[in-house]
């Protein structure tokens, strides 16, 4: 593609993104907001692909737009009244002041606060742009990117993004799996699963019967290919979770997750658990934490990623289900 066409595409993408973001944030109705947010995420995948970030594009499609979208849609679905109306008593100082809309003085002060905050945001935008342009136009050293490529051969994988995620900055990824675990344990502590959907009709069932195996196959492929091409545990886990969401929509209650609590616990902790175990094994071998021997690095990363994929998928599915499994007696279907 020549430069002019590229510029045209860039401008089109940027305008689409800005207007979708604005529309998402100013929609008066939460359901509209969610749908626009999903559309925003889909256009965003194009932008990531354009900026040569295919790994991020895949993750955005699967997690950013896909699963976040599904979670948000489910939230609107189940609580249409509360989620759509403004929840004044919950939203802090600003909303409290708006409680007496009839009082003109309060109304005035709330308008004043809105304008102050808006002006503050505009000022922030200018400062951000100023600083960013300054940063981009200065000759920043490229040493980090260079040392990634210099050490890539010892990392066990050839996709530099996977090398950063699972080797150079593996500690970040370990803590990130702990974040996922924290979220799912928090969800468990708060609530039980929602009641399910009715069993699907024959057409949807037919669709499910080929879509789910295809998604599982795709997850396996993404996991494997992550070592040398765009892909990896997170994208694979999200794809696997999508299969779970589809099964759930078709009315399958357990969607392949184990019924027994202890097996479910193992699936949830295996991602961070195995990662930690590998790290500590290196300590026991007299190496620094998470310092894989170069010859083994490729295998260890694949092992960690497989376990991570399982935990990620289970966490995302359980987040979609909305809580800990119900007791056995309710498990009628």
């Amino acid at each position, binding site marked *: 593609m020549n430069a002019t066409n590229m510029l045209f595409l860039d401008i089109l993408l940027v305008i689409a993104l800005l207007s979708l973001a604005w529309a998402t944030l100013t929609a008066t109705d939460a359901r509209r907001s969610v749908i626009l947010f999903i559309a925003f995420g889909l256009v965003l995948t194009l932008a990531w692909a354009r900026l040569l970030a295919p790994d991020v594009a895949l993750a955005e499609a699967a997690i950013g737009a896909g699963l976040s979208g599904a979670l948000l849609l489910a939230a609107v679905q189940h609580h249409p009244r509360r989620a759509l109306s403004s929840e004044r008593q919950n939203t802090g100082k600003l909303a409290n002041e708006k409680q007496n809309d009839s009082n003109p003085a309060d109304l005035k002060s709330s308008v004043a606060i809105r304008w102050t905050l808006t002006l503050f945001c505009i000022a922030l935008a200018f400062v951000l742009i*100023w600083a960013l342009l300054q940063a981009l136009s200065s000759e920043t050293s490229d040493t980090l990117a260079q040392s990634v490529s210099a050490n890539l051969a010892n990392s066990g994988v050839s996709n530099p993004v996977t090398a950063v995620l699972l*080797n150079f900055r593996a500690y970040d990824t370990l803590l990130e799996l702990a974040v996922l675990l924290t979220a799912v344990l*928090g969800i468990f502590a708060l609530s039980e699963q929602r009641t399910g959907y009715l069993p699907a009709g024959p057409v949807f069932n037919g669709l499910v019967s080929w879509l789910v195996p295809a998604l599982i196959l795709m997850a396996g492929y993404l996991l494997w290919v992550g070592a040398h091409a765009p892909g990896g545990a997170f994208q694979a886990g999200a794809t696997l979770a999508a299969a779970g969401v589809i099964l759930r929509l078709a009315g399958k209650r357990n969607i392949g997750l184990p019924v027994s609590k202890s097996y479910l616990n193992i699936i949830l902790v295996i991602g961070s658990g195995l990662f930690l175990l590998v790290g500590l094994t290196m300590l026991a071998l007299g190496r620094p934490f998470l310092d894989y021997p170069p010859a083994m690095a490729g295998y260890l990363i694949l092992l960690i990623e497989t376990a991570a994929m399982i935990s990620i998928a289970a966490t995302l599915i359980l987040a979609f289900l909305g809580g800990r499994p119900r007791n056995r007696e309710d498990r009628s279907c």
Partner: protein
Amino acid sequence: MIDTLIWLVALPLASALATQLLPRYATAIVISTAIATSINAAALLYAVATHGVMLYQIGGWTAGLGIALRADGLSALLLMMAAIVLLASSIYASAYFNDNPLRRRFWPLWLLLWCSLNALLLSGDLFNLYVTLELLGLSAVALASLGGKTAALQAALRYLLVGLLGSMLFLAGVTLIYAGYGTLDLATLSRVVAAGPIAWSALALMTVGLLLKTALFPLHFWLPPAHGSAPAPVSAVLSALVVKATFYLVMRLWLDIFSEVVTPQAASIPGVLGAAAVLWGSWQALRAERLKLLAAYSTVAQLGYLFLFFPLLQALPAGAARDAAMGGLVILALTHGLAKSGLFLAIGIIQQRSGHDTIRDLDGTAQRLPATTFAIALSGIALIGLPPSGAFLGKWHLLAAAFSAGQWLWVVVIMIGTLLAAAYTFRVLGHAFGQQPYPRHPVTIAAEEWPALILSAFATIGLGLAGAPVWQLLKVSL
């Protein structure tokens, strides 16, 4: 020896997973982890004192390409305080949640919180700090909402939104730093950072995000409901440690990494906000009707004192006076952590035994729960800053710094704040020592009262009489 750093993060994480898998043995796992992690923290403190700054390169990669853990005197002291507070609170919590079905949900989240605190205090990498902030925020919210009804859930939700907004602003600052300097490693950054639009706006974004999480006035609005409606051991840790962790980061950025970039005008902003926090927080604590809210507003005020040090440390030239003030700041933070956690644990005992924490109806508490009342009195001494508490030393150095920097306004603020603290403490004690004509039998609940007593006594007597090593340790800095 050097492995201590990674074990401080890895052990709580491993135990969190173990308690989730083996809920039946959870209490035993938690108590042994708490003891082992406290020993680790003490070992780190000793190692920093004898060998200087500790560095651990994870994965064997040099810092920059990889992530480094670092510990100096400041981080080692805060790690030790966290360990003491968490060990005592763990013992307390094992009794507090004794037969409660929530304990099964509580322990894994509790250990994840501990893991994130240690990870934050040790992290030497800006993006890694963002991840630890999120881990800390989510585990704190999950714990604060545990078993809560409408009020607690509302408070937890607001806490979550504020926390997420704070982390996002922090990440925006980190992004600017990477754009401008091409590094995330804190040590490298402190060498290359220079005054200019990039450094200023990055520092401003990160600071606003962190101050939101630290609840500095006027960004404190979320703290009293969240700390006031969580289960007692959780409130203790939120007030003593979680806000301190983000305060530590502000300190690290302003006084260490960006110290060349910060101007006196900029440093007066946290000072002024801190002064407002001291006055507003103490006044609200005096007016609070519930003990827990009193303790929470007192946290808002006590955090204010810490920010008063910023303009003074900026004004004082490097040397003995500045070092003395720095030690005062740290000892004030440590004392508050220990005293406030002791206070919250004691309040939890009263709440469980009498079913409420309304200050007006505390009469007879001293007759029924003598040890608990004693713990409240001890922590009150530390909150006011009476001798021999560590806070007395801290405020003494704060005053000395204000005099030598010629900034008199702060002296007035400190005086008013201290008087208000005395007023709200004696208001509580006045009710608690109120006699009931037919007192109920005094009771002792060893597993709950000992932790509260030890924490408050440590703040009041331990740090006050044996605070000197703090200044020694702070000489070891990155």
